[in-house]
């Protein structure tokens, strides 16, 4: 087993990997940008190495600096987290060539699944259904001809895409040229590859994905599904396991899990990966969308229902250990839901809300889990994803999990930036969500004009505001109350606390 691992990431996923390493008795090194010098990940890691300025292109995407940091600090392996270099085959190769272990699949598997068109051809070859599509590569006229053949609505997607970037739904032929241009621009920026392709667009679609784990000894298992249909602007915001759609269709679940294993085997996959499917809610047909050759943001819901620690398993597999279970040993128990808490304004096109986190108090209650990389005093900046936390709950049944999640969201205090908490609570309370009738367009359809309920200002808020100012104003302190001291307060203490020569 490794004794020291470098984490080539930031934020909550870096923290998550550090916590897994602590339980395994492995030391951690994080790399960080100047903007993250005081981050929670830097604080929790055993060592931290500065690799550049805030823009990812000068730090978290600088493969050579990261490999150099790993070598210099005596690490044996590199965990890429998700995003940044996690699906970059050249990085995985560079890590391998430096004599280190990349905690993830081989560069070959990353490359094979990274180019969407190649991935589609591969999985089709092993009998996994895919959406009717046009592989692109031609002129605008070629795209227009292919689009007419596929029929509208259709999706324009980036060949190197992922995470909703470089993707547009097009409903009429007239809008196609504009969509192609916008997608190419976004894709060029995000992936340095502006190639596009077209795909059939399913109106009543559910996004359901299957987690797989494979070791270096030829053993592979699936860890059931996650449903991630609740999305805004093609970004997942609520994920759950089991899928309410598959709960009533065990034979469909079995077929999808089996297809996922075949897809992963088609590239001799090793380590943790996810096969994303789109399911037509009307027909029950499912289609391979893509394989994510890394850990997913929403991996905690799988951990909650299977009791498998995916990050620890990733590390064990990379170290050469065999899987400690067979397929028959695995189970999917209870119901888990995750929601992503963002600094964004759902009433204003989900625009990110940058600023300082004046105060953050995560909820505390049985069977909830908070994965977060920020705390009071940190800032949400323009440079990185504005996610504040993932809140995950687990309960025996789906209705109990929804109630638990709602209570936890109600107790989550975040001051200083606008968040999507009120929005998430309204989505959880929507009749379609409660019935499990979720499609990827629920948010767009039912929450297009969402506004936060305008709560009248209660007197208690005004009392609290006045009291807080009164206490700060230097008026006589309330002696009866317990007033906590902050030894690192920059304000001088008046009680004569002064020691030393």
């Amino acid at each position, binding site marked *: 087993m490794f004794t020291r691992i470098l984490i080539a990431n930031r934020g909550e996923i870096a923290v998550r990997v550090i916590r897994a390493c602590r339980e395994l008795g492995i030391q951690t090194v994080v790399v960080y940008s100047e903007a993250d010098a005081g981050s929670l990940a830097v604080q929790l890691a055993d060592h931290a190495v500065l690799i550049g300025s805030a823009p990812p292109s000068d730090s978290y995407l600088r493969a050579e600096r990261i490999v150099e940091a790993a070598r210099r600090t005596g690490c044996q392996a590199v965990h890429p987290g998700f995003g940044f270099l996690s699906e970059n085959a050249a990085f995985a190769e560079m890590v391998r060539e430096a004599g280190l272990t990349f905690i993830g699949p081989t560069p070959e598997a990353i490359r094979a699944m990274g180019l969407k068109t190649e991935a589609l051809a591969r999985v089709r070859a092993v009998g996994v259904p895919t959406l009717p599509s046009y592989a692109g590569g031609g002129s605008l006229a070629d795209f227009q001809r292919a689009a007419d053949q596929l029929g509208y609505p259709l999706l324009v997607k980036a060949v190197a895409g992922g995470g909703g970037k470089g993707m547009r739904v097009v409903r009429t032929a007239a809008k196609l040229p504009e969509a192609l241009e916008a997608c190419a621009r976004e894709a060029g920026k995000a992936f340095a590859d502006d190639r596009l392709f077209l795909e059939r667009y399913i109106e009543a679609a559910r996004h359901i994905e299957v987690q797989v784990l494979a070791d270096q000894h030829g053993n592979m298992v699936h860890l059931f599904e996650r449903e991630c249909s609740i999305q805004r602007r093609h970004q997942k915001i609520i994920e759950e396991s089991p899928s309410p759609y598959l709960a009533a269709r065990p034979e469909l679940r079995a077929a999808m899990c089996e297809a996922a294993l075949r897809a992963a085997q088609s590239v001799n996959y090793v380590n943790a990966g996810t096969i994303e499917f789109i399911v037509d809610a009307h027909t029950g047909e499912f289609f391979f969308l893509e394989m994510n050759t890394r850990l997913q943001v929403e991996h905690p819901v799988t951990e909650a229902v299977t009791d498998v620690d995916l990050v620890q398993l990733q590390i064990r597999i990379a170290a050469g250990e065999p899987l400690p279970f067979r397929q028959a040993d695995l189970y999917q128990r209870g119901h888990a839901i995750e929601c992503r808490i963002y600094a964004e304004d759902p009433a204003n096109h989900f625009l990110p809300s940058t600023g300082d986190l004046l105060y953050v108090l995560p909820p505390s209650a049985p069977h909830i889990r908070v994965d977060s990389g920020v705390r009071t005093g940190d800032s949400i900046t323009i440079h990185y994803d504005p996610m504040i936390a993932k809140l995950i709950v687990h309960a025996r049944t789906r209705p109990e999990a929804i109630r638990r999640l709602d209570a936890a969201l109600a107790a989550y205090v975040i001051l200083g930036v606008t968040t999507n908490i009120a929005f998430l609570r309204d989505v959880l309370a929507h009749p379609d969500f409660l019935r499990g009738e979720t499609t990827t367009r629920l948010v767009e359809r039912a929450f297009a004009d969402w506004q936060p309920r305008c709560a009248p200002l209660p007197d208690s808020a005004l009392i609290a505001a006045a*009291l*807080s100012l009164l*206490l700060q104003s230097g008026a006589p302190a309330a002696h009866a109350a317990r007033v906590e001291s902050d030894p690192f307060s920059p304000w001088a203490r008046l009680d004569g606390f002064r020691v030393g020569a």
Partner: protein
Amino acid sequence: MEFRFEHAGALHRVRAERDGESFRVRVGERTYLVELVRAAGNELVFRLGDQVLTAYVGRDGETLHLAIDGQCFKLNLAKPAARRKASESGAASLSAAMHGQVVRVLVAEGDLVKRGQPLVLLEAMKMEIRVTAPHDGRVVRLLCKAGDVVQRAQPLLELAEV
């Protein structure tokens, strides 16, 4: 002490003072006897009768951010801010909706534009945001150029009604 808070356009006056071990707080015509239970960090716990309330308070300049009973409020401590004024030309300025970088300016000074027409492309956190014309008009003045980093609420251009 009297405090004035602006919230959602309304002004609230609150008087608060110590009264023995408690506080007497007057909100409009209502007077409350408030007992302070705990004040620690950003947390304020107080009692109103047999009800115990917890408020979380943070301050950003003249804005008090406050969470109580699962809801967040922003109270403004200053006098009501001066309303955004039309410029001398009779034009109103269009501002950035968030901190970001200007990718492209799609119009020039003097251009006539239609309601909904894209004027400026911003990028932030790898996302493109399009600033569109809120009404038909004429671009009076450009206040940004491609490559500029702009703050939230910073004016990007002035648009006159025509």
